[in-house]
């Protein structure tokens, strides 16, 4: 039985993990691009990102492009595995229904 992950299951965090999981291992997504994709506010997104970062599921990198600060987000290997396990857990719930 794959572990059901309550932290990931929250809808916004589920979408964050799904969006980042669609990137390849080498890619990072800009904070603004993720915000636009999910249609959430900066504050809301930052709150959910902090929880995922604290769990070690995502890596947040702050840098500068030219003179502008940019924040990039990527899944960690632990986060990718946790997401895969959670998806599997959801499928098993359906299968056992």
């Amino acid at each position, binding site marked *: 039985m794959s*572990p*059901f*992950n*309550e*932290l990931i*299951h929250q*809808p916004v965090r*589920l*979408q964050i993990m*799904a*969006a980042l*999981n*669609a*990137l*390849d291992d*080498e*890619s*990072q*997504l*800009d904070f*603004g*691009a993720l915000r636009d*994709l*999910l249609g959430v506010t900066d504050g809301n997104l930052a709150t959910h990102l902090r929880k995922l970062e604290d769990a070690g599921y995502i890596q947040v990198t702050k840098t500068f*492009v030219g003179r502008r600060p*940019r924040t*990039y987000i990527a899944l960690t290997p632990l986060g990718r595995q946790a997401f895969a396990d959670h*998806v599997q857990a*959801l*499928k098993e*719930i*359906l299968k056992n*229904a």
Partner: protein
Amino acid sequence: MKHAPVSPAEAQEALDLIENTTQHMRRALAHGGMPYFLIIWGLVWTLGYGATYFLGADSPKVGLVWLILTTLGTLGSFGVGAHLGRRVRSPRGLRIGLYWLAWMLYAALIIHFAHPQSGDQLALLISLFAMMGYVSSGLLYRSGFLAILGLAVTALIVAGYLLVPSFFNLWMAVFGGGSLIAAGLYILRAWR
């Protein structure tokens, strides 16, 4: 993490949300800059081939028009690429840029040594090389839309060259450039 059972309906809802987000993200990645590239190069083709038709292929102004248009097109493409690179940091963007640079180099070398015998043949070769780039990069980066568009425009190019040779440049301006612009506008409208 403790086990937190949810109903099958809730599990299905979550899986649907994951699937929708994944598809949205993949589409944004695959097609984020494509409409702009298509519109930029569609305009280059429409204006360039239109100028070639109306000024005459032998006019000394035609070469200058093409030089200006392709320079603007290349600069515009780099601008779009740089903008996209700020949204997703990935070695893939650099690889796509290098792919097209290599493609341009080989196309220029092959066309130079092939010695096309007329302006129309030169236009045919350049256009076919461009569409070869669309089809191959579409296959490489799993964009069926780009690959199919490349094949469709290739068919239009060959048809125009064989069926209406006297109006080939006008044909290319309308159907070649027009197809690229229409495809770019379609993506902007349908996929955003």
